[in-house]
């Protein structure tokens, strides 16, 4: 501890340099945590997928709807124990910045298919009873300060017009992986407001099957049933659907990993260079400390400790800011990342990375300082 003051004094020698180095490490680790959280939020949405739930969509693309008339036929497929459906609404609340997911759902059947969406019984009854009502996730309600009875105006984009929903319930997820940033309202309300040509079409059907082992057989049966129709289907497990949805934007995990690694590596090189410059500028001082009796090992720890301290402070700032900012912002990426939370394990990984950066950036200057020959460094041959 008595040497900590010495480390601190040396770091404060050039406040600007120390600040910029710490700041650049903080930025690198902020980005690392952000990119890592994109991956973990994808993983969370995959975890929240039920193995006994299948998703049925148009065989050509998700953007094409399926007829409502498929519902009865789907319900009769052997192995299917429940059906619900819904449409992605894609509206804007007050400002385009306030993006969150909205789904028009077949309310009477949705809770049966999504038991992880937990709503008190009285609120469920109120929601079922009122066609213009909606329910919102706890996180979403907290973000906008909504409470039951509030009216939420939404500007439709896919379904143009000014829509207005009254909140009749605030749901919670049974697990932390369940999205609490979505607004659900009545599909019937949406359907009756549409022009004739757009009525009675559904974006996605969800099927509940008796057992996960039946997924492949049921999917095949469903797709075979509509293979020769004008609206063929593509049926897959909810997990496969989520994974496919994510993969629509490419191998995002690999891309983000490469991007994150490149940022951290570049900043580490800058930090190594800065630390080496800082140590080189102090050659005479290091020689004087050795003259006073500071051993090579102690010099190694002092110079290495500076790099470690800078990296750790940068790491704490970067990871802490990421956790704080995304928590305070309730960031959902326009509904794409409903579970965008910086996880404790991400923070831990960030801090370990900071330690690694500190060690790697401190090794070269610390070793060269420890190896310094006093007589040469004092540069005096009388």
């Amino acid at each position, binding site marked *: 501890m*008595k*040497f900590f*003051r*010495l480390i601190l*004094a*040396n770091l*404060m*020698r050039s406040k600007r340099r120390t600040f910029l180095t710490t700041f650049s490490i903080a930025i690198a680790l902020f980005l690392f945590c952000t990119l890592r959280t994109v991956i973990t939020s994808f993983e969370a949405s995959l975890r929240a997928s039920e193995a006994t739930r299948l998703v049925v969509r148009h065989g050509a693309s998700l953007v094409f709807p399926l007829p409502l008339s498929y519902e009865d036929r789907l319900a009769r497929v052997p192995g299917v124990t429940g059906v619900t459906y819904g449409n992605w609404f894609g509206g804007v609340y007050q400002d385009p910045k306030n993006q969150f997911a909205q789904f028009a759902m077949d309310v009477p059947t949705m809770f049966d298919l999504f038991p992880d969406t937990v709503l008190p019984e009285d609120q469920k009854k109120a929601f079922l009873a009122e066609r213009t009502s909606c329910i919102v996730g706890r996180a979403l309600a907290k973000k906008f300060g909504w409470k039951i009875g509030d009216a939420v105006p939404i500007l439709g984009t896919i379904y143009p017009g000014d829509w207005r929903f009254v909140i009749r319930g605030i749901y919670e997820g049974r697990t932390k992986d369940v999205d609490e940033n979505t607004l659900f309202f009545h599909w019937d309300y949406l359907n009756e407001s549409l022009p004739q040509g757009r009525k009675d079409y559904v974006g996605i059907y969800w099927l509940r099957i008796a057992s996960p082992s039946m997924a492949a057989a049921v999917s095949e049966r469903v797709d075979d049933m509509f293979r020769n129709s004008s609206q063929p289907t593509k049926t897959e497990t909810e997990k496969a659907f989520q994974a496919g949805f994510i993969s629509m934007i490419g191998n995002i995990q690999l891309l983000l990993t490469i991007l994150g690694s490149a940022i951290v590596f570049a900043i580490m090189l800058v930090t190594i260079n800065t630390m080496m410059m800082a140590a080189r500028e102090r050659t*005479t*001082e290091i020689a*004087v*400390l*050795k*003259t*006073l*009796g*500071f*051993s*090579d*090992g*102690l010099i190694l720890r002092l110079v290495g400790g500076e790099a470690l301290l800078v990296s750790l402070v940068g790491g704490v700032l970067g990871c802490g800011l990421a956790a704080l900012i995304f928590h305070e912002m309730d960031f959902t990426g326009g509904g794409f990342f409903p579970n965008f939370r910086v996880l404790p394990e991400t923070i831990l990984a960030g801090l370990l990375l900071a330690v690694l950066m500190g060690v790697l950036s401190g090794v070269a200057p610390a070793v060269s300082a420890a190896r310094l020959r*006093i*007589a040469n460094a*004092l540069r*005096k*041959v*009388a």
Partner: protein
Amino acid sequence: MDSKNGNLIELRGVTKVYHRDRIEVPVLQGIDLAIREGEFVALMGPSGSGKSTLLNLIGGIDTPTSGEVRVAGESLGTLKSSRLASWRARHIGFIFQLYNLIPVLTAYQNVELPLLLTRLSSADRKKRVTFALGLVGLEGREKHFPRQLSGGEEQRVAIARAIVADPTLLVADEPTGDLDAKNAAEILLLLQRLNRELQKTILMVTHDPHAAERAQRTLHLDKGVLQP
């Protein structure tokens, strides 16, 4: 101290050769020297005569090419780097021409540096630092940084740093070389006091004959050879 003959410093057949590119540059040649404990010795000689090299060998911050350097009972050539570092901390107080204080530390913190290597408590370190700064006449300047001190004051801080751990030997490399006449005289007087009142053995390299007059004995080095 060497218990057999009372010599604190003994050099036998010491040579030092530097290599510049592939050329050998002999700096010291066959140095034999003995300095008794409590002596104040001045080492004079022209530039390039090897004075500082000899001082570095005796201070344990350089190693001879051949011969033996024995200081405070220890043959320095046999010590490994880590043991040599703790030997320096225990036995040697260095005073440099350019003071070599750490600019980001206060006068107090600079003087405290050698004590950080000891097991002394913070309170004991404070007592010693306060005493050393008082001895060199810098009471009340503890919180000043080197840039806030005059050259003479900086050298006083450097002397306080050199004596604070109560070393066996003080080695001073042209301690007045960067000072004006008044400050130089004050520093020399201080060194004399340390020698007389605290019985510190002092080996001082100097160009200045007036400075050398303050010592009890003057050695002359020329082209790496001690003159008779």
